[in-house]
């Protein structure tokens, strides 16, 4: 896929919750190989936009196209990897092993219950190795640290060989170093595997070295463009005053 293939297109999109406007007239194009950071204050519609893109919410006005197809006709969901907000806030009661978490995603995309078990095992081992956790497949996911759980969720998304990964504030509740390692992994996936990444983040400073495009939301799309131009734009000042971090820092 070349650099200019449009994989997600958002056209005149608006959405409100019970009459309360969340998003207004959003137009956005995301191309193969992009690492897009979506930033904005609380309540600016970031999560709503991501949920509309992956079909968890239905647009009230406007359209979303995935890989050139209107969302309602799109069926190739294996091309999309999604990690929701607070994704690691698991039910502590659930007895599921790391391997089962990944296998459930892999087998659910196959038509039949019994697939090629050996091939599946190899795929699971490969993605675990890729995220640097190849020896914990038998462990309960709830027994792992927050940082390890995030990597397992990345592995779960990668096992279906997606072309785009959408993440909603994936590092909530983990320390700075773990966050930095996690974003380095995303950067590596973006560069080495040409995986398109769309990331909602509150801490732009940690991630900005990997990002090539930025979308700034405040119900409307305030800015959408190159990362380098964003740093010199007026929007920066507004975000600095809103408690956002544009440069890398340690807490």
């Amino acid at each position: 896929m070349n650099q200019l293939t449009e994989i997600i297109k958002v056209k005149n999109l608006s959405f409100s919750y019970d009459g309360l406007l969340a998003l207004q007239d959003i137009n956005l194009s995301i191309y193969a190989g992009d690492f897009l950071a979506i930033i904005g204050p609380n309540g600016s519609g970031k999560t709503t936009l991501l949920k509309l893109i992956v079909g968890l919410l239905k647009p009230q006005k406007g359209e979303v196209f995935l890989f050139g197809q209107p969302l309602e006709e799109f069926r190739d969901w294996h091309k999309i990897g999604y990690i929701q907000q607070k994704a690691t806030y698991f039910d502590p009661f659930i007895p599921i092993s790391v391997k089962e978490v990944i296998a459930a995603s892999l087998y659910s995309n196959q038509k039949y219950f019994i697939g090629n078990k050996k091939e599946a095992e190899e795929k699971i081992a490969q993605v675990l190795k890729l995220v640097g956790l190849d020896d914990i497949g038998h462990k309960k996911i709830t027994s792992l640290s927050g940082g390890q759980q995030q990597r397992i969720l990345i592995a779960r998304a990668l096992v279906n060989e997606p072309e785009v990964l959408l993440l909603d504030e994936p590092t909530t509740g983990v320390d700075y170093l773990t966050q930095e390692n996690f974003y380095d992994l995303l950067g590596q996936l973006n560069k080495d595997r040409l995986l398109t990444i769309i990331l909602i983040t509150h801490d732009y400073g940690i991630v900005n070295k990997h990002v090539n495009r930025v979308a700034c939301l405040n119900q409307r799309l305030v800015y959408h463009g190159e990362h380098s131009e964003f740093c010199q734009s007026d929007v920066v000042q507004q975000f600095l005053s809103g408690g956002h971090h544009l440069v890398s820092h340690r807490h």
Partner: protein
Amino acid sequence: MNSILVSSFFWRAILAGSFLALACGLLGVFLVLRRDAMIAHGLSHVAFAGVAIGLLLNVLPLIVSLIVCILGSFFILKLKNQAKMPGDTAIAILSSAGMALGIFLTSFKRGFGAELMTYLFGDVLAIAPMEVWLAVGLAFLVIVLLIVNYYPLIFSTFDRESALVSGIRVQRLEEMLIFLSSITVVLGIRIVGLLLVTALTVLPAASSLQLARNFKSTLILSSIFSLFSIISGILLAYIFDLSASAAIVFISIFIFLVCLALKKINLVKSS
């Protein structure tokens, strides 16, 4: 003991009980983990109305209650999904309606109460041959559908939102689970009765969750606990002339307490 081996009604009870045990053991894990444990309780009250209609019309109560239960379960889903009502509220509304309808219908026929009692408290040793085959067939259907949908069920139980994005028809799975719950509850009525049917779906699952290290072992342990409770309960009831439903539930509770103790010992050791 010899008389047990030649007793056809004993073997009928064991056959129907074993299939139902497997269905309950597997289904219960998903219901408990999805916080839908009380659905069996609610549906058993709805089934009460079905039993009353069946007895009043002289149609096999098991079949009528199955139909009423399935209709009721879809009504619960409608209240949950379309009226955006919390699941426990929807279950409470429908179970009250089912119970009220059942009680109302009892006033139409004399001597109705005694017949109804066997459905309230269950009588597995009095199960008819036709009911056995119905139970075996339906329990088999429950087991097969759960196994075929094993991975999508795990995925959506663990992480509903991601399962939706991955293209799994989560709502269909939820409809299937409530449909299978209806079948299991109706079959359970014959074994332990309306009042204790929740125990069959909840206790083996809750016991296995104390010990299991992964999803697969949870399902296996839950099925074993369920099988053991039902078979040993029927055996004890037959030998000592006890109520089979009470024996089954007591054994299930005993297993749960043992599992709870084992978990505590394990925690103490590992700390």
